């Protein structure tokens, strides 16, 4: 790592990665460290509050947002979030949610520090020594990353930099059906949408022989993987950091 500037970042691991896919967080730490970051983790962090906010439970979302602010206000480092959707929550919803309880500058101080993981990685130098052999993976871009953060290419771009060949699914702009607690309150509809996505995945599996489904939003991935496993299909589903840390290759 000679020649790289060390930069200090805070990690916002997100509740889903923390609770059900810790290896994605561990891999993200490794991927960041390999690219010259010193990673800090504030253990006061819990959840950005998006699940409550998107369900209309604004008071609960606000309480979680305030905890988020307290967890990170002790430093001025960039906050790298392991979810496009959670990053979008902070950027888009916090200014509205917190405007009566925090000053505009206090909100701006937090909001301006949020960076989604692949956006961060895209702006840092790629690791040397990409794959010799091209590995093909399918990429799923979450809706909030696409439409709220407008980070349409960062995930695919960092994968390509590390030597992966990235295949997009047909009707890629269609939601996978996760939608936070929508996945729990409307399982039948949510799953019908997952099945459409999984059918599109099946096509690229057959056509291009992709070896994994990769994404940067744990919610979508849990939903799609959970559906495939229920149907007896244990196709590999990976959080993007798991493909980007040198040790994992």
């Amino acid at each position, binding site marked *: 790592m000679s020649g790289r500037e060390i930069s200090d970042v805070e990690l916002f691991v997100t509740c889903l990665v923390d609770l059900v896919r810790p290896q994605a967080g561990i891999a993200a730490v490794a991927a960041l460290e390999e690219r010259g970051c010193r990673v800090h983790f504030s253990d006061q962090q819990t959840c950005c509050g998006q699940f409550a906010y998107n369900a209309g439970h604004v008071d609960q979302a606000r309480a979680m947002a305030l905890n988020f602010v307290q967890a990170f206000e002790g430093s001025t480092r960039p906050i790298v979030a392991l979810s496009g959707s959670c990053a979008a929550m902070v950027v888009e919803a916090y200014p509205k949610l917190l405007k009566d309880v925090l000053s505009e500058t206090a909100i701006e101080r937090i909001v301006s520090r949020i960076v989604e993981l692949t956006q961060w990685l895209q702006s840092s130098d790629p690791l040397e020594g990409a794959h010799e052999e091209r590995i093909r993976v399918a990429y799923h871009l979450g809706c909030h990353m696409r439409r709220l953060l407008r980070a349409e290419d960062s995930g695919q771009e960092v994968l390509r930099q590390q030597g992966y060949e990235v295949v997009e699914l047909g009707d890629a702009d269609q939601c996978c059906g996760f939608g936070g607690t929508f996945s729990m309150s409307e399982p039948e509809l*949510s799953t019908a949408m997952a099945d459409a996505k999984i059918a599109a995945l099946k096509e690229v599996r057959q056509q291009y022989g992709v070896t994994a489904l990769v994404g940067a939003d744990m919610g979508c991935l849990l939903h799609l993987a959970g559906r495939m496993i229920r149907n007896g299909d244990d196709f590999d589903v990976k959080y993007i950091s798991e493909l980007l840390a040198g040790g994992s290759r």
Partner: protein
Amino acid sequence: MSGRLPYDPRPWRVRRDSALGNSSMRDTLQRVAGRLSKAKSTAYGDYQIADKWRLAGVAAKRRAISQIDELVVQVIGEIERHGGKVHRARDAAEAVRCVVEVAQKNGVKLAVKSKSMVTEEIELNKGLEDAGVQVVETDLGEYIIQLAHEKPSHILAPAIHRNRGQVKELFDVEADRQGMAHLANADIEQLTQFARQQLRQEFLSADMGVTGGNFLVAETGTIVLITNEGNADMVTSLPPLLVSIVGIEKIVGTWDDLSYLLQQPALSGVGQRLSSYTTFVSGPRDESAMDGPDQWHVVLLDNGRRNLVGTPEESILSCIRCGACLNVCPVFRQIGGHAYGSVYPGPIGIVVSANLDPSMPSFLDLASQACSMCYACSEVCPMDIPLADEILTLRNHRVKTMAEPLLVRRTYEMWGRLWSTKAGYQKTIRIARLGQRFLIQKKKLRWAPGLFGGWLKTRDMPLIPPETFREWWAKTHGE
């Protein structure tokens, strides 16, 4: 005052499951809605100036809504100056009563209609039929669903849920009724010919034409109708009596304003630069005219619209009913329009139904039931209506008015309380680990309480691991 909209009394669960169980409808929808969405983005992509005009159109609509009271006065003056008669209807019942009275006074037996969502909103056909007037829909899609005794499943393409094989079956039944031979096959050309022949006779014998209005230009009192079949030309010129029902939000100030908006419904709805036919009506025929109606009645409908002016929700009155948000909506593509249980389906349908008719709980519930918050609708709306945010506002309203089941409410309250502190969050990890020890069967979770159980109905969920990320961090990085 607020409006009243028709609704399907079946519970959401029944409407949804009946849609999800209809695989031929879902196949047709996926294909057609996908094609229309692609056509829209292609049309815009090839047409550099379109977006600039679109934005001018948005400004024109927003301006018109802010001046709605003045424009209503102006439009009434202009229409009556050309010999038309304007009736103002506060709600659906008043509008229907007014049209029925006009029909009865003129001894109308047969009415022909061009496609109009507002007449679906007020259930005009039922009102006229109850008064002994036969009503024939002349838009091809509307004609199809009228034969099927259905409601539209899409605001622009009312029969989008039916494939041509199913259309042929309907036409065969109609042919039997009239003692005609069946069509040889389900070619689109043959199907269209059949409808054309049928409708031609109706146009010629109708006593009354009924239209909606895509736009109503205030400065000249002109109604603008756009169709791809030319049927509005026939409806507005052949029968001796013409009635147009228009929501007050359709008024725009000037022809200049109209020029930015005129392309939008076809461009955003089906990816066409202009609809095939554009019909303008400014009054009944004068002495010099060869054709046109002797009388023209315009019903200006409120039905909950005026109430929204000046509220944070007023932008929804800018909707031009192009259907772009339906075409792109992943939920609409799965369940189609009927499952929404309102004449207005899709993202705009959720927002319009609940705001025009706040008294109907099933409309408010749709905000939570029929949306995954993907924001595709907000992105695609040519009138820049923040549809997803509007749906979020409705969800919040649902929470504030305690419209949710109590158990769901308590779940969010407890969840929110626990997860707003580190200690509470860690407590949930301990509870979840303890709980899953009892719930695991063959190394898998098969059941979970309350809201969480919904996930496990159709999908697996990984267990809470022996070491969460924060536990790993504390172990490897802790002091």
